[in-house]
């Protein structure tokens, strides 16, 4: 077996996925994923359907076998081990509670399988169910529970085993919007409380931003960008991550002599000359009051003129579509501007235009 080039692991890294490759037939689902997960981290694998996010999770759980690469848990290589010998537990999308066992027996299942001391099983099961506020349903049959309740039992069933890593495969996707938001908050506080590493798979970028310490954005079997939600939002590295996480304006610009030019819009940049794509978040665009529109702005501010094409009232923030000429339309999110019409002057800080890279091979 080859020793991976990345054997130097920080003491913090708990789970290490190294150059993971997975094929189904001729299709390459994962095309070389390397990802380190720190102990106690809440990491979200975010991606569209078909991006390979569930496959990645199933590889860690042991339900699928790698076609290349390695998976390490601390000092131990686990990708050859069967699922029942891995120190991870999974919360399934469809809950997967055992229909022939009571809630108690469902939660006790892992403890019995691992031959926990018989005497301590009832106490641990009770504690786990109370942690997810399901203590009163201990003798119920799973079929009597609602979707949200089944989800809680599934969570307790996994957590009671004190796994080193908890894998969650779109666990909230079957719940309705309100329950889903509530479970997100509970899930996050639960994770802080138990201090277990969570790897959470979702296609919902808002959910990913709300929950995660870090997001790993997966696209067609490759990692697009990995980082804390604020970092990915503030400094997206590619057009894909800029568009997938939050809304954005993509500006194709020509850079020359320290200035970027996109149509009629010009701003200062320190990037090297040549063609480039920039991301500009809608909320970074401000409306310049007519009174101060004549004064020349500071060099770090870019100004442009545009015609209001569409205004959508959004409560605190209105969404504007601005026609800047040259068939260029920008979207801006402006706090309570009142009804707007015709030509207006807008501005943004040059530092808010983030240079993006087209990913190689994308």
């Amino acid at each position, binding site marked *: 077996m080859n020793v991976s080039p990345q054997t130097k692991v920080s003491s913090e890294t708990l789970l290490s996925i190294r150059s993971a490759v997975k094929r189904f037939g001729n299709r390459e689902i994962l095309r070389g994923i390397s990802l380190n997960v720190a102990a106690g981290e809440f990491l979200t694998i975010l991606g569209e359907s078909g991006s390979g996010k569930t496959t990645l999770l199933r590889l860690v759980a042991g339900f699928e076998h790698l076609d290349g690469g390695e998976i390490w848990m601390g000092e131990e290589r686990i990708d050859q081990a069967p*699922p029942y010998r891995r120190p991870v537990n999974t919360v399934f999308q469809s809950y997967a509670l055992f229909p022939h066992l009571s809630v108690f027996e469902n939660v006790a299942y892992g403890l019995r399988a691992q031959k926990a001391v018989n005497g301590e099983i009832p106490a641990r099961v009770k504690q786990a169910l109370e942690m997810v506020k399901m203590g009163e349903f201990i003798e119920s049959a799973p079929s009597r529970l609602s979707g949200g309740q089944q989800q809680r039992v599934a969570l307790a069933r996994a957590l009671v085993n004190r796994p080193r890593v908890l894998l969650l495969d779109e666990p909230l996707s079957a719940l309705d919007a309100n329950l889903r938001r509530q479970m997100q908050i509970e899930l996050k506080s639960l994770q802080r409380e138990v201090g277990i590493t969570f790897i959470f798979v979702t296609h919902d970028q808002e959910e990913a931003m709300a929950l995660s310490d870090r997001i790993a954005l997966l696209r067609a079997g490759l990692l697009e960008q990995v980082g804390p939600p604020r970092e990915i939002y503030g400094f997206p590295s590619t057009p894909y991550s800029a568009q997938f996480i939050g809304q954005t304006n993509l500006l194709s610009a020509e850079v020359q002599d320290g200035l970027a030019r996109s149509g009629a819009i010009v701003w200062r940049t320190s990037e090297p000359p040549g063609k480039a794509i920039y991301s500009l978040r809608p909320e970074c665009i401000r409306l310049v009051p007519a009174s101060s529109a004549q004064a020349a702005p500071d060099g770090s501010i870019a100004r442009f003129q545009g015609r209001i094409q569409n205004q959508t009232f959004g409560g605190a923030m209105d969404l504007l579509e601005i026609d800047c000429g040259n068939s260029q339309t920008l979207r801006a999110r402006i706090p309570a501007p009142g009804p707007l019409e015709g030509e207006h002057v807008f501005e943004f800080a040059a530092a808010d235009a983030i240079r993006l890279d087209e990913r190689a091979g994308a």
Partner: protein
Amino acid sequence: MYSRAYKAAVTIPPVLWVTVFLLVPYALLFAYSFWSVSPAKEIIHTWSLHNYLDLFRNSMYPTVLFRSMRIAGAVTLLALLLGYPLAYYLSFHAATRKELLYQLAIIPLWASYLVRGYAWKTILGTDGVLNGFLQYLHITRHPVEFFLYSPFAVVLTLTHIYTPFTFLPIYASLEHVPRNLIEASHDLGASPAKTFLRVILPLSLPGVLAGATFAFVLSLGDFLAPLLVGGSSGIMISNIVVTLFGAAYDWPKGAAISLCMLVIVVAILFLTERIERKFSFR
């Protein structure tokens, strides 16, 4: 709503069918079982319980009944032991060969019962295939006679005939075991063996029960296999009924035995129905 004519058209045929072919014959059987036969072979229409009492007084009837139950029990056990692994393999490991193997497993159902019975006769007989083979290998010097015309031969033949009846419901119930439950079990640290015992087997019990009921009830009432390969030591209860209704011309006693069998079978069906309800979870 539906018209009267429509309601009549869908209701009358089944009611008629049940009446003519089920209720009337059973009523006749019931009546006959209390009558008796004169030495001149005439039916005497006097009501008495002596047919039923005879079943207990003459030790032949209980002996044959218990033998029938032993044979049916053995057939059930063997058919489950053969049918379950086959169904399990097909459901979990056959992959692309599933369709082909499924057809192969149920092909015996298309062959006539009689053909299969005679096939075992030629295999087990003194100049049959099995004896020829054993002598060829010099394992035996003379033909072994107990292969044929014995309870063993009956069990073997019935097992062959009724294994598809256990295989089919078990296969159906295994196909309905959600695969993510098996993954969940592995995920929680249960080995494949534990997963089988704690998840797959309990969830397939309705199929096992249905298969066992088929095998037991059908072989309990079988009379062709004992007739073909059973000999005198392999006689089963249905053979006695056939004789009583035929050569012996003792319809009342035959009716009494038939009704006893009916009670036993209905009791079994009732019991398995109750157990099955306990094991269905949805």
